């Protein structure tokens, strides 16, 4: 019983500690490319003070909210853009146009996950409408 109580206390402490770490500020924008259903996504990463963060390892993937788990978009690692600190880019290939939840998985500087919903169309990509 004592072990269970200690484990529970540790779990709470870990969760509180992790919740207090300030999170990175992430901006995501995508645009169509010449190839069909291939989109160039740009991720801007800054710390809470607004300073660009370098050395970020981020992988982009996507799921379609209207058809969850039914599409398996190949995850792609974003590469840093030369001369633009804090900016990373990746080309993501979708299966169809429409609203997608783009998932950014950060492995460095610290593990995190950010999800942004975007409306991908052939000629433009815009943030999904909030209701």
């Amino acid at each position: 019983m004592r072990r269970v109580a200690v484990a529970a206390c540790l779990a709470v402490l870990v969760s509180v500690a992790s919740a207090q770490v300030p999170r990175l500020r992430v901006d995501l924008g995508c645009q169509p490319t010449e190839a069909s259903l291939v989109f160039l996504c740009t991720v801007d990463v800054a710390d809470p003070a607004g300073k660009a963060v370098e050395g970020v390892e981020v992988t982009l993937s996507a799921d379609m909210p209207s058809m969850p788990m039914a599409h398996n978009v190949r995850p792609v690692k974003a590469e840093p853009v030369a001369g633009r600190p804090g900016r990373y880019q990746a080309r993501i290939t979708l299966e169809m146009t429409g609203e997608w939840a783009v998932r950014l998985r950060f492995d460095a500087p610290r593990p995190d996950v950010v999800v942004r919903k975007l409306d991908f169309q052939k000629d433009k990509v815009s943030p999904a409408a909030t209701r």
Partner: protein
Amino acid sequence: MSDFQIGLLSNVGMIAFVALSAYLLLISGSISFGQQAYFGLGAYAAGIATALWEWPLAVALGLGALLGGVGGGLVGLLTRRLHGVYFAIATLAFAEVTRVALDLWRYQRAIGGELLGPDGPNGFNGIRRAFEEGWTPQSFMILIWTLLAATLLALMLFERSRAGIAVRATGGDPVLASLLGTDVARLRVAIAAAAGAIAGLGGGLYAHLNTYIEPRLFDVMLGVHALAYGLIGGLGTALGPLIGVMIDIGILESSRLFHGWRMVVFGGLVALLLIWRPRGLLDEATVGRLRAWFYPGTRHA
């Protein structure tokens, strides 16, 4: 293993929970178009438990399964006298009511300077407990498949038990099963609750792997697919729905063999199988033959 393979296997595992949930009702003679509702309830419950109440992941997954089970049991209780198309419509109606209710529901709290929790149609972002606890996509995939294997094993053992035989008898002929002493109404409520719990567990896993959920994820499309997987894979064994998921997600989708035509091919495949093998690839007769082949001299019910 590549990120793509890990993501693919995780998706196959998670959707198999909804397919197994629909399968359990199918073998008891009930067609449900509403199992996605319990998947959604499980996802929201487990997500709220970790993100807002800061519960441990394992307890949150248990809560998801419990809420799915309670939801399934309640709907089972209300619909215990309904059969065929009436039951199917009732389950669909409940699922849509649940989805619309989630669309209207807002319950948010500031955690670490960030507003978290269900925000109606805008969804529920930031269910990050699994990542904060150090689960990698690979280790989470192993968790999904471990829980799926345990569920499959439990179902297979159940099917060999007296209660499992009663479930199949009820699915075959409820009047005859009732005459033989089975309390059909009570059995159907219990099966609906168990099916809801399985879907709820899958939902909790989904919420923590994707870290984001919204009501639209749990619409009828997911329920129809779950039903179709059982009908493709077969109703002779609990492995049937998993085979159905593997055919659709594992082969048709991942290979991109048919590109945008996949859904048309999938629909055609379901239609063909319903004509050629109405109870799926691994139907009861095939499973019986396979058992006789592997265990000659053994009699099977």
